[in-house]
């Protein structure tokens, strides 16, 4: 059995990364081209890793399910990216960003990883600016900063409401430059369906060509998984339609441990659902909470009244009331849970009663419409388009939706999973955000991993392991490809006769997950969820209906394969949530709350990472990585 060793360098926090970099073995420049590296996924982590490794001289193969690597879901990130530049001179430092991130994550992440993240954050900004990423600027020509998502300093860099797009295009272009140089070979419209292990080491992948349906084999000296999170387990989420956990889950089934699957972030500022036909929800950047004020009517009788008819005295600005220090800028989990409570009390507004107001009236009065338009123009435009209501005139209506998953494949300090040679970066790993991610930290982590960590740690692995070439004719490739082919054939044969569409079953899964494994969980509900998931999985494997053929473009077949994996991962999420008898970050168990209804963390018993080992018989085994805090004192998060 694999030993859960985080390979954390000894020595003071501030020197761990530097020290590790100095200890690492290097691959000679003339040898790098002999080493193939596979990068799966071309979001911020994948594109930046592929670009950097290609530039270093490795022979990189990059894969994405989209028709172009530029479309990875990082593109949709709106708000910004944190760094500790301290340009506004408001007292920011590496330590503060580190501390805020550890605390924001409710003390469920590794000190060493988080500190490294804060350390490299400034390099990311320098890198992006050098690439020509058009960040927001002040009139004098300096970069602009704003405070974001509960931070008490202005450390967030942004590009209007399209920061993810601009950073991704920067990384994408850097990668395309390596494509031009012949150092990166790009494979779009390919889905990784399995990991190939030779002697227990990751040596390649099996992909399906999403246009022709053909199976393809690719061998390499290391595999880097940058395939994003598993928010789509909930069906309705802010994640893209095609976002999925298939690559990560299939690696899990090949031996990579899955850590903290129950840590899911439910983002407070999304556009509420309007009907059952919906397949995804739209996020409104949380930067809106900098200027928007969240409220509901004090009186249940007022919920259907037009908001401007509700006088000031009859409005409950509940976040400002309950959390005077942070007000509308409390972390995401706190804001989400409180919105749910208000709606549960019958104070929710809008057609479904599942929404609260986010009001810009005061900000527009104080700062002027121009200023607000400059900051949030595109978000207001997007809201207007979707809802047909003008947020300059009427308050927005928002409701929480699944947005980000902090859990993911377990990785050590060098971002290697429990399978040697399999590295995991970005949202796909579990490493930096603990039980809750702070705003503007996802872009930072994706790029930190891809530009500044993976290129070195993969090199160290290649040098240290002295990996020998394998051919795709190796019997391990035959066997793995057969497994993938069998699964597809099985699905297609059931799919011919079945009666329920992929979307119908998928929607059912989403409902179970939102109801029982969502913002507020109970032991009983989680056990019930587990039973229902098992039942739904059986239904899938007996009655799913899949149109068309496997030997060509078939969106429903793609989705069916992903749903099959979500139907397994969801059960692990319920198990993990049920085992964690405490409330922390995005994981809130109703049995564990303070008298005031706040999360009750239980550090004595649960200060660990739960890393799950796959079991074919449905009885996964938990391995604990105890979290040691040498530099910070575990405090109760208080935003009052």
């Amino acid at each position: 059995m694999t030993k859960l060793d985080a390979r954390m360098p000894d020595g003071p926090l501030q020197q761990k990364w530097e020290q590790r970099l100095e200890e690492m073995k290097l691959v000679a420049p003339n040898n790098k081209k002999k080493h193939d590296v596979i990068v799966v996924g071309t979001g911020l982590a994948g594109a930046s890793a592929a670009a950097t490794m290609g530039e270093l001289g490795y022979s990189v193969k990059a894969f994405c399910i989209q028709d172009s690597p530029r479309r990875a879901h990082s593109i949709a990130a709106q708000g910004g990216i944190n760094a500790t530049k301290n340009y506004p001179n408001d007292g920011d430092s590496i330590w503060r960003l580190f501390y805020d991130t550890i605390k924001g994550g409710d003390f469920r992440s590794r000190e060493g990883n988080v500190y490294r993240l804060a350390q490299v954050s400034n390099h990311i900004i320098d890198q992006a600016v050098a690439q020509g990423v058009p960040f927001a600027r002040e009139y004098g020509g300096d970069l602009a900063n704003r405070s974001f998502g509960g931070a008490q300093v202005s450390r967030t860099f942004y590009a209007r409401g399209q920061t993810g797009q601009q950073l991704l295009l920067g990384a994408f272009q850097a990668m395309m430059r390596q494509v031009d140089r012949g150092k990166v070979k790009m494979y779009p419209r390919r889905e990784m369906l399995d990991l190939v292990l030779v002697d227990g080491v990751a040596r390649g992948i099996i992909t399906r060509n999403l246009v022709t349906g053909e199976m393809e084999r690719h061998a390499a000296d290391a595999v880097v998984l940058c395939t994003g999170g598993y928010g789509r387990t909930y069906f309705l989420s802010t994640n893209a339609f095609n976002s999925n956990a298939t690559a990560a889950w299939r690696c899990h089934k090949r031996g990579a441990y899955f850590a903290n699957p129950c840590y899911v972030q439910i983002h407070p500022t999304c556009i509420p659902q309007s009907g059952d036909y919906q397949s995804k929800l739209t996020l409104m950047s949380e930067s809106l909470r900098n200027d928007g004020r969240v409220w509901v009517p004090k009186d249940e009788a007022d919920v259907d009244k037009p908001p401007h008819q509700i006088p000031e005295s009859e409005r409950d600005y509940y976040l400002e009331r309950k959390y005077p220090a942070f007000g509308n800028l409390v972390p995401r989990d706190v804001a989400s849970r409180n919105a749910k409570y208000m709606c549960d009390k019958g104070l929710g507004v809008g057609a479904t009663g599942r929404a609260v107001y986010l009001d810009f009236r005061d900000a527009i009065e104080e700062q002027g419409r121009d200023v607000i338009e400059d900051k949030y123009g595109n978000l207001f435009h997007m809201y207007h388009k979707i809802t047909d209501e003008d947020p300059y005139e009427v308050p927005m209506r928002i409701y929480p939706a699944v947005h980000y998953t902090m859990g993911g494949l377990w990785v050590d300090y060098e971002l290697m999973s429990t399978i040697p040679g399999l590295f995991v970066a970005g949202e796909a790993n579990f490493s930096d955000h603990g039980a809750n991610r702070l705003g503007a930290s996802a872009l930072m982590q994706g790029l930190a991993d891809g530009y500044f960590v993976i290129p070195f740690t993969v090199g160290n692995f290649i040098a240290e392991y002295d990996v020998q070439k394998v051919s795709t004719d190796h019997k391990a490739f035959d066997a793995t490809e057969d497994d993938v082919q069998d699964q597809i054939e099985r699905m297609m044969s059931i799919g011919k006769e079945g009666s329920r569409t992929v979307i119908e079953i998928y929607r059912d899964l989403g409902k179970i997950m939102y109801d029982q494994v969502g913002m507020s969980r109970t032991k009983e509900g989680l056990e019930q969820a587990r039973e229902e998931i098992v039942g739904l999985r059986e239904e899938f494997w007996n009655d799913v209906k899949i149109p068309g053929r496997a030997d060509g473009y078939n969106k429903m077949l793609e989705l069916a394969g992903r749903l099959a994996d979500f139907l397994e991962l969801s059960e692990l999420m319920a198990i993990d949530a049920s085992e964690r008898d405490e409330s922390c970050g995005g994981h809130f168990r109703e049995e564990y709350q303070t008298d005031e209804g706040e999360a009750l963390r239980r550090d004595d018993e649960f200060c660990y990472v739960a890393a799950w080992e796959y079991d074919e018989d449905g009885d996964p085994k938990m391995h604990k990585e105890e979290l040691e805090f040498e530099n910070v004192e575990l405090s109760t998060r208080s935003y009052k």
Partner: protein
Amino acid sequence: MAQQTMTVHLKVWRQSGSDSQGRFEQYTAEDLNPHMSFLEMLDVVNEDLIHAGEDPIAFDSDCREGICGTCGFVINGQAHGSERGTTVCQLHMRSFNDGDTIVIEPWRARSFPVIKDLVVDRDAFDRIISAGGYVSVGTGPKPDANSIKIGKDVSDKAFDSAACIGCGACVAACPNASASLFTGAKITQLALLPQGKPERTRRVQRMVHQMEDEGFGNCSNIGECEAVCPKEISIDNIAKMKREYLRAMLSDT
């Protein structure tokens, strides 16, 4: 909540593969909620087709919030439909009338071969970017980000060009199937910024030549590209590209 529903009649281009003959098929979508997006309407149509044992309409989409650039087809003769500054995924059924007939076709351009139904191959765009749509800097220590001052006006202008989502509507709308707006936007963004200046000559030459090699047509200043662009990217970007190209032809640096 009682809500008015609507019915629309669809004429959809169906084509099983790049080499096969395509044709229009007719469908009727009933009981639609006007707040549905256009793609959600197609989702509903597809669910019915699947239940009826037929092949669903293939179309690409991903973020469904207008930023990834994956979706896009021609609706009643207009790329992304008739609403300005909108991708198909952000187009809502309320902008149609009950009983309308709606014609849906894929992007039509020689350089964007049809893969299936409404799905086309836009790899040519990526090849244009890889010909020079970047600043040639490696990863590694860089000067402090604020050591390069860029005025807000310039930065905002560069952003306007950088907002392109690479959806291909500009090509689909152009009678010459020109990719000038797409290519011009990237050239303009990088030519405006000090970071992009050192290699602007090589960039514009390589990108324009790649665009031509891909079989895209020339720009003849019709302006349809700007009219359909979901990010409302200005045709000025094409003028800028042409100036950059001319400058490159006349200078050696």
